[in-house]
């Protein structure tokens, strides 16, 4: 079972996370102690993660959506809950939250916004690309930013699929179906 180890957090902090947090949060500060505290708070989620592991054994793909807009999260939940075959949906409303969730259990597909308060999508993706060990998850970015803006703000790592808002649910569904098909092929 993968948890967010203190070392992983440290790696994230070393990987520029602390600096990023300061910049974006402005008056907010992150310390190792606060991260530890956060970790403790997350133990509940971890236990649900265990349950989800069981779900995974039933080959239900896990999708993590990182989006700061509550209405859009509702839209993701409403839409994905109708998908067939079903998927397990996890949500986070900022990059830091997202990283913690990934640390607990890497999803099969990560769908993330880029403009978010605190640690944004750019920083989250950068941290993920620096730190290995997050498995073979597919990553899709769904953003209101234009390609030129994305480049201006440092771009996104290779291999990440880029979509512009509104949310392209059909394309996301194809991605999940494709993932499921591959996994079936691997296990067969």
């Amino acid at each position: 079972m993968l948890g967010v180890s203190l070392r992983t957090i440290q790696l994230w902090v070393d990987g520029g996370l602390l600096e990023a947090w300061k910049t974006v949060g402005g008056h907010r500060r992150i310390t190792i102690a606060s991260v530890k505290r956060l970790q403790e708070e997350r133990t509940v989620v971890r236990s649900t993660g265990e349950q989800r592991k069981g779900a995974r054994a039933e080959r239900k793909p896990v999708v993590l959506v990182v989006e700061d807009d509550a209405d859009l999260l509702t839209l993701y939940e409403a839409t994905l809950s109708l998908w067939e075959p079903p998927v397990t949906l996890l949500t986070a409303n900022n990059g830091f939250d997202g990283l913690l969730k990934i640390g607990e259990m890497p999803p099969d597909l990560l769908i993330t916004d880029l403009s978010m308060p605190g640690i944004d999508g750019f920083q989250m993706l950068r941290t993920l690309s620096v730190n290995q060990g997050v498995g073979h998850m597919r990553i899709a970015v769904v953003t209101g930013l234009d390609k030129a803006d994305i480049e201006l703000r440092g771009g996104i790592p290779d291999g990440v699929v880029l979509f512009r808002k509104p949310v392209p649910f059909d394309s996301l569904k194809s991605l999940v179906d494709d993932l499921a098909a591959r996994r079936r092929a691997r296990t067969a």
Partner: protein
Amino acid sequence: MGAGRNLPEDGRDTAAVADVNPAVDYRQIFLGANDAILIADLESGLILDANSRLCGLLHRAREELIGAHHDAIFAASPRDDASFDRAVDILQVSRQPGVNKNFLLRADGQAVPVEISTSLSNQAERILATCIVREIAEHERAKAGLAASNALLNAIGTLQSRFIGSVPMNTLLKEILESFLSLTGSEYGFLGESFQTSDGMPYFKVQVMSDSVWSAVTRDFYARNAPIGLEFYNLDGIFGVILKSATPIVFNDFSAHAARHALPEGHPPISAFVGLPMTNAGETLGFIGLANRPQGYDAELLDFLKPLLAVCGSLIGANRASQWRQGAESELRRQAMVFNNISDAVILTDHEGIVLDCNPAAISMLGTSKKRLLGVPFDFALSPGDDTAHQVRTAIAAVDREGGWNGVLSVERGDGAQGVWDTNVLPLHDDAHGSSALVWFNHDITERRAAQMKLAKRTLELNAIADLSPDGFVFIDRNSRVTYVNPAFEQVIGLRGKLILGISREGFEKAMSELCEVMAAGTTQRIDGDETVLLQLGRPKFTLLKRTQRILCDESGVLEGTVQYYRDVTQETEVDRMKSDFLSTAAHELRTPMASVFGFSELLLRRKFDSDKQREFLEIIHRQAGQLVSLVNELLDLARIEARAGKDFKLSEYDLAPIIRHSVAELYRPDGELAFNVVIPEQLPRVLVDSDKLQLAIGNVLGNAVKYSMGKGVIDVGVIRREADGGPQIGVLVRDRGIGMAPEQIARIFERFYRADASGKIPGTGLGMSIVKEIIGIFKGTVDVRSAPGDGCEITLWLPVAAALNAVGEKGER
């Protein structure tokens, strides 16, 4: 010998005895004879007796000689001289009749030339040889002297003929030295001349020397210096003494003389030395040094050498005269060549300014002929006119008064153009033209003048540009010194020109880097050899500078200097960044509600949901669509204000009170729990505004107060007054008792899309306060924000009072 043994035993031969006169004391004659007499036994060769004369001649005692073998006193011939007999055996000598010449050996080893006449007699069966020895040294000396004189004359004759035959002087000097060495029998020698340096210091130059090397170093030294000579500048020692003396100076006990210390270490010892000054016409031209003649140098020898020395003096003197003559001739030829070929116009005039002579350059520069120039007044030849005549008169007067003149003359050139000559005038003392001639050296500086003037004009223009330029310029010369800084540089960078002018490039870069927070090498760009770098200055204020550096080279690629150009790009960079940030944020802010509207409506279209779900989704769609409407409206408001900079504002004087009341009324909901406490005096000064826009601004402030009050507390609305910016101002004050803001939030309140509420619970676009600031700014007012977290927020919109504006305007007109 048998014959000898046949002689009577007692030595008394009757026949011989018969000749003996008993009255004569033969013994006395023998001992006292003026001639030296030797008696020897013919058979044994032993000396039987010698008289005192012989003893004196041979420097030996009689006892020493008697009983010795006669071989002991006969010397081998020291000289290869045919006039002396080779025989050394007295017996051989004695058997020959007459006189023989031979050498006898003195006690000190010296051979003494002698004539020997021998007679034989029988005495007591022995044959005795009686030799009369006569010294012939005097005679020999005279003969040798004659030979030496012949050699001397020979040498003189040879040397003179060699000089006449134009043998190179060095060869001749070598031959002179060799003559002296052989005539005196000296071991070493040298010959040197005395000269003067160009500044009048005398020195002695050894022109030739005999080989006296004693080591590898001196051999090398000799090989190097013998051909070119060796110069001595210190004439305080023995050389100086000799040069000052008119007569030869002899050191026969040189090894005892102080000057021996002057000899370099390892030099073969010098026993005797003579310095022979060579003079000509009373002037000492140099001297010959000779050393180590075995018998030393005596007056006799010096007398003997006198004629040769005199001849050598005159030879050297003649040589110098001839050299001077050749030098003078070539100097004369050179001067003539310069005169004819110099590119400067050289003109000779008399003191009246009449042209006496000129060189080809003058003729071509004036575009005339020599014929037409000679005899003409110089000023007329230059350019007919009073000005030139005056200039020439001034020049001549200056030469008479001060001995020279330098100045500028106007000249009409051959091509008709006006030219300028830089002219030097000197008086010339020349036999051909009398002592009253003047020589005018004229250098045509027309082109140079034109170029200089062009340059001065260009410099003036460039200085004006640099002085007026809003961008900074720094010039660093080829010696890496800062030589120019324009006023804009001082202003932008805050470095006083006084402090950096003249400092090195390194010092300047250091001063700059102390001011710079960032001098990123990564941002260096090179375009056409220019180097551009972006600098970020922390002091005196935050400034972004673009520095472009160009290295200046002349046509041949030699570095002339570096120009640094500084442009303040703070504003444009900041504006660029803000524009780009604004666009990117606007895209996100617009697309996010759009995504909800689109996504939920699609979901509702595709699937059937229960009425609760339907309602929930429709509410979201409505809310997000409302957000889109607000965003679009406010973005458009902002864009319009910015794009038109308030030009479409309808500014006129309004009463402030109705505008405030109207703004409050717009927000008033009869069913709401909002409580506005509006306190406005009846009489308010009028303000110059666009009422709709002011209402929009106040409305935005009131809207925020409502939102962040969260329905708690009363919102106060009032007016306050103050004096600021040179006049009375009235402030519209809105105070809520809501969640308030931290200082960091206040700092960003006017930032586009900035929302103090990050939770998303309070609706808004983050553009409201930006719009307020833009509008109040156009009314020449300001916005004050006072707040603390949990302590509500107080916002004042300050506006200048319209009456005050008018009053100021009227005052200004009077």
